[in-house]
């Protein structure tokens, strides 16, 4: 069996610092599934809730969480499902079985993107210079999901309960993302765990 590599496999780690202002942790090999369907159709929403154990978030920029499964609202008929490592194939099969004969799409994006957690005392300053979106707590409550840009790369930003941000970034932009992060957090110190 071939070993798996994350999109951030080839990054060059910054010199270690004792009191880093920004901490990056990659949530490696999470299952990423894109789900599309009609939210007005109760047969669709009920079946999805049955499989995932949690109802789809229908309001814009919201999310839902149940155990290791997290659902992001992406647009009125599209969601991103983040599931535990290695379970995406089973979840996809379960969804297809439950949604048979419905007008839906389930796509496995696990190898196309990755989940990165950013935290630290200087996180707000980092987000201020990286994202065009206002990531201040007054505008970005816990559980909110925003698709926007992080520097010049597209990112789906989620606010975690502990105040840190989870970013979904594309595999093809991961090198760029990390080089930007390293540069932007130079003045605060960056630690990768």
């Amino acid at each position, binding site marked *: 069996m071939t070993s798996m590599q994350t999109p951030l496999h080839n990054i060059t780690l910054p010199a270690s610092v004792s009191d880093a202002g920004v901490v990056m942790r990659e949530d490696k090999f999470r299952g990423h599934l894109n789900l599309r369907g009609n939210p007005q159709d109760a047969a669709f929403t009920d079946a999805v809730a049955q499989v995932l154990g949690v109802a789809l978030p229908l309001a*814009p*920029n919201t999310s839902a969480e149940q155990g290791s499964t997290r659902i992001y609202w*992406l*647009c*009125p008929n*599209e969601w991103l499902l983040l599931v535990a490592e290695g379970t995406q194939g089973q979840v996809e099969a379960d969804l297809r079985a439950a949604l048979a004969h419905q007008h839906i799409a389930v796509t496995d994006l696990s190898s196309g993107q990755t989940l990165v957690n950013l935290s630290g005392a200087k996180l707000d300053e980092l987000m201020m210079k990286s994202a*065009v*979106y206002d990531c201040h707590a007054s505008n970005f409550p816990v559980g909110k999901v*925003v*698709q*926007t*840009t992080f520097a010049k790369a*597209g990112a789906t930003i989620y606010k975690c309960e502990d105040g840190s941000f989870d970013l979904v970034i594309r595999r093809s932009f991961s090198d760029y993302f990390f080089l930007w992060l390293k540069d932007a957090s130079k003045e605060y110190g960056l630690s990768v765990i």
Partner: protein
Amino acid sequence: MLHIYCPYCEEMREEEEFSYAGEAHIARPLDPESLTDAQWGDYVFFRTNPRGLHHEMWNHAAGCRRYFNVTRDTQTYVIHETYKMGEQPSVTGEKP
């Protein structure tokens, strides 16, 4: 930079997240075969270029990736309204 309200995300977002997608409300002819070349050329190539109110499409490219309509003043850049696909503008500049 423009601040644009996305009717799908229901939030004001920065212009950087959007891309312009041309004039709105251009209906594809139902029977293209019966059109003259001039009529077909008009549908494919020719657009209005008003000074003032313009109904146009934008794509929330870095966000929800939906297309929607914007009523914008081409002279002042004021955005009067944004509305979803399939809806009609409420600001048309015509006197009631």
